[in-house]
């Protein structure tokens, strides 16, 4: 698990210009900086960092901050039960996009993991499962060849060993820098899920903020059971694209988890502190 060695936060107590720039860039991103004090991007309160628990919630407004896979595993799996799969897989540059290697290197430094998804097998309340956990800190969780391949292999592993699979999604969509190969991942993962489905096995998705684009239009929406975290942005088309097309204001709460529930595209909205418990119940009711 040494791939989780680096912290995915930035510091508030730095004084170099670079840090200032990073901060400016990330102002709209509700992740937690690593200083003593942090600011919630939802309610804008300044929060004493120690008040934020392992669930990464705003103590004032209960906003669900974005999490790393390491943090997610800690609040979801039985202690020490997670074993990573395909940890050595690394991206290449299928489209020969100029500067892609550098983009990847920076993303790896920032997120502290080699790609935008971590997969593995684990136990939840004693039940064996396969997990795939995406990370929005890595190029906004975009899906390129590695994300598609790791998720596909995780699904195939689950099919082979007749295990349920749980995927925590967070993604801006396809990895544009990988061109058509990123798009084809949508079909690849969906085909693997079709086989898992046909084998009569359980697939649960947990949609977290944000889940959009090609991930929504493939594995995010294919769960037998679809859970969503409160207020998570979930949709297909980007809000700016929609606004640019229809030239009208988008309704309040558009594409949030509550909107998806209301329109019939999520089974339950589950507070982060209850996800482990609910997953355990779902697994129990599907074990025989």
């Amino acid at each position, binding site marked *: 698990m040494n791939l989780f060695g680096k912290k995915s936060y930035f510091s508030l107590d730095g004084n170099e210009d670079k840090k200032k720039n990073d901060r400016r860039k990330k102002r709209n991103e509700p992740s937690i900086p690593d200083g003593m004090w942090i600011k919630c991007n939802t309610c804008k309160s300044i929060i004493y960092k120690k008040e934020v628990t392992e669930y990464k919630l705003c103590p004032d407004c209960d906003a669900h901050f974005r999490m790393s896979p390491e943090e997610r595993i800690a609040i979801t799996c039985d202690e020490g039960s997670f074993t990573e799969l395909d940890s050595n897989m*690394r991206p290449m540059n299928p489209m020969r996009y100029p500067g892609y290697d550098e983009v990847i290197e920076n993303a790896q430094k920032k997120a502290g993991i080699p790609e935008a998804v971590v997969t593995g097998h684990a136990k939840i309340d004693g039940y064996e499962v396969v997990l795939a956990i995406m990370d929005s800190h890595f190029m906004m969780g975009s899906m390129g060849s590695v994300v*598609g391949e790791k998720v*596909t292999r995780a699904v195939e592993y689950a099919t082979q060993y007749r295990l349920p699979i749980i995927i925590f999604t967070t993604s801006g969509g*396809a990895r544009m*820098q990988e061109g058509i190969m990123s798009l084809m991942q949508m*079909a690849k993962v*969906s*085909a693997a899920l*079709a086989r898992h489905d046909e084998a009569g096995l359980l697939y649960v998705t947990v949609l977290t903020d944000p889940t959009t684009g090609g991930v*929504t239009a493939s594995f995010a929406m294919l769960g037998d059971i679809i859970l969503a975290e409160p207020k998570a942005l979930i949709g297909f088309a980007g809000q700016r694209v929609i606004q640019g097309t229809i030239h009208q204001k988008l309704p309040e709460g558009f594409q949030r988890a509550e909107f998806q529930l209301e329109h019939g595209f999520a089974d339950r909205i589950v507070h982060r502190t209850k996800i482990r418990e609910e997953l355990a119940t779902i697994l129990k009711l599907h074990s025989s």
Partner: protein
Amino acid sequence: MSDTMRKVAIARKIARPNTKEFIEDIFDDFLEFHGDRLYADDGAVTGGIASFEGIPVTVVGIQKGHDLDENVQCNFGQPGPEGYRKALRLMKQAEKFKRPVITFINTAGAYPGIGAEERGQGEAIARNLKEMSNLKTPIISIFTGEGGSGGALALAVADTVWMLENGLFSVLSPEGFASILWRDSSRVEEAATLMKMTAKDLMKDKVVDKIFYEAKEGIENNLQYTTDQIKTALRETLPELRGLSTEGLLGRRYKRFRQYGEFTE
């Protein structure tokens, strides 16, 4: 103008033959069917049953118009969830009656709108990808013009994928690519070339299996030049795919999509 940009302009020409014209030229007895049985009939997707030289087939495709009135009817070839669900309904019907499916793709992409999101655009595309990967009857997809992202892929999970000489298929438009990745919409041409979105590029990447050529005077002036090639290809390929066992067919299709991606480990 670069070769790719020329193809982008040709693929988007309003006079370019649309799906119904391809269907009329290639098949007999076409009966158009409407509706997704859930909400509406999306004019951006057309489909139904027809016969190819005596073989009953299901045809489905994304429909564009040649003028504003027609384009209002078919939403400029940008389907909503109803369109993808209509396509899936017709494909499931084909599976039941063991008819091969032939899809025609020509779209800038799935429609980005409020209603489309309310009714689950993402879910509709996802469902098509999953169901098509496992549909127990042969599927052949033909890209005839634009092939914009997930909205095009949602009709292209096929046993073999063919493309016209000036067809395209990409993760997003070159305009979108330039403005999102470089924040510079003037670099469209550079983006188009880099994206490797033409039939020849896609054949190298094994995304496309066969290319059909277009008449020198323009496909809008001589559609038959191209549809003759399509007919020849169908004549060869349909019996081959129909001759496979269901298991063999689905195994091949799975392998086809399983291969995509470049990585090291």
